[in-house]
Structures are given as C-alpha cells and as structure tokens.
C-alpha cells in the first residue's frame, strides 16, 4: 500500500467520526487543526474523485438524489487504509521519540560523567 498524501490522510480522518459533505470536510479539518490547515476546494474535489474511484469512500445512499450536497462516508477499505497509514505514522513517531529521548539520555549520562570527573 502506497503512503497516503497528507491531504488525503486528513480527508479520511475527517470522515472517521461521521459522514460529511464536501465543504463539511474542509470545515472539519480546519476545526481539528485549530484553523492551521484549510484544504482548498480544488484539492479536495480531486481527492474525493480519486477516493471514490479507489472505493475508499462512498456516497451515503439516501443523499444520492441531491446533486449539490453529496454526503460521503468511509468504506471498510477506507477505514483499513486510514488505520494502516495511522499505524505507519505512529511507528515513525515512536522511532523518532526513541532516538530523540535516547540522545537526551546520552547527554545526561555525559553530564553526570563530567560532574564526577571534575
């Protein structure tokens, strides 16, 4: 499985809790990121088209009639894809934490050794 782009990951994240329409996804990501990330409409439209082709999201059946306000939800595959990427990112963060903390411990050891050698 290919790593998801950051924007694609955010769209899947926005849909994990509830189905949303296009602009609702933009608003949800904006809300989650405290206003830092505002997905542009062209970027979102392309992602929604791709995710539908890959069957990672689907239209909520009852809303298929309304052409303007299509509501999207995650499919089971979409959920799996999201969790897969989540695990991958988490693993990278854990490794990073280990290395960064390890470096700190190493610095502490050195400081203690320096104290004793004085």
């Amino acid at each position: 499985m290919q790593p998801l782009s950051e924007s694609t990951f955010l769209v899947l994240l926005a849909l994990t809790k509830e189905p949303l329409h296009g602009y609702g996804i933009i608003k949800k990501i904006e809300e989650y990121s405290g206003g830092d990330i505002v997905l542009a409409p062209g970027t979102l439209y392309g992602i929604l088209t791709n995710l539908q082709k890959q069957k990672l999201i689907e239209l909520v059946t009852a809303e298929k009639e309304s052409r303007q306000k299509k509501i999207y939800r995650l499919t089971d595959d979409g959920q799996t894809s999201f969790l897969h990427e989540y695990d991958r990112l988490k693993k990278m963060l854990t490794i990073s934490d280990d290395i960064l903390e390890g470096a700190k411990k190493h610095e502490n050891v050195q400081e203690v050794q320096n104290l004793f050698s004085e």
Partner: protein
Amino acid sequence: MKTFKKFKISLANDMDKEEQWLTEMSAKGYHCYKYRPFTYYFEEDPTRSYVYQVDFQSSNDEYFELYKQAGWEHVHTAMESFHYFRAPKDVIGDKRIYSDPTSIKNMYQRMLMFYSIIFICMLVAQAGLLLNWDATFFSILSLTIVSAVIILYIYLFIRLLQKMKKYDKQSHIN
C-alpha cells in the same frame, strides 16, 4: 459602470500567467467578468480587487457548490473544462483553489490528456490530406497550416510536461 474588452492570446499551459494578469488588472480596478475566445471583458470599479484563478476540471453541480462555499465566485467556463473563479482579495487572503502541489500536478495531467485526445483526433481527421496528396496549391497550403498546428501542440505538450515535473518535484519535498 464603464466596461471594455481586451484581446489577448494565451496558451493553455500559461494559465498561471493568465491568472496573474487578471489579478493584476483587478488590482488596478479592472475586473474581468466575461471571457470569449481570446477576448476578456472588463468592468471598472476602483473600490474592489479580486484574486483570479483558472481551473481545469470536469465539473458538476457539486464542484461549483464546493468552490462557492469556499469563497470563490464562478466567473466563466470555457470549453466546458476551463473554469474561471475570483474572490475578493481582502477576504480570501493568500488562499488559492489548490493547497498542495500534487493536486496542481494532477490538473496539468488532466489537461495533457485532454489535448492529447484532441491532437490524435486532429491527426486522424487530416490523414486524408497525405493519403490523397496531389501537390496543388491548396494541398500545400493545408499541409503548412496542419504542420504549424502540430508544432504548436508539441510545444504545448512539452510545456505541460515541464509544469507537471515542477509540481511533482515540489510534492516530493513535502
């Protein structure tokens, strides 16, 4: 309100320059409100200033609704796929219709596909010219025109591929 039109030829691969030009015109108080082949219609109002954006996309109602909600006013659509949008500069700030390089690359890729299909159709349509070659003035004139168009298309393809490469590189840095 005073209106006027301006004639300008712009190739599809120079969409970003076209956007920039329309935005600069708007900053001077001349706002494009209509487009006909090679002709831009402006209206004058020094109190407003817009950011213009051009998109290439197969659209539907949902597409226009999404752009509208995100603050983009639809100005015009050319050839069913080139969509002109604008938004007041003071409201939209530095937001644009695309927020990552991957989606811009995808747009140029769609454009490349679109023109490739037109190009192939044109080649097929003009194949008769060579098959029934008779070296009359008319045939030579036609061949000259067709050759010029082919060169123009090849130039367009190269420029579109360069654009795709540029945004693809940017997306790998991110």
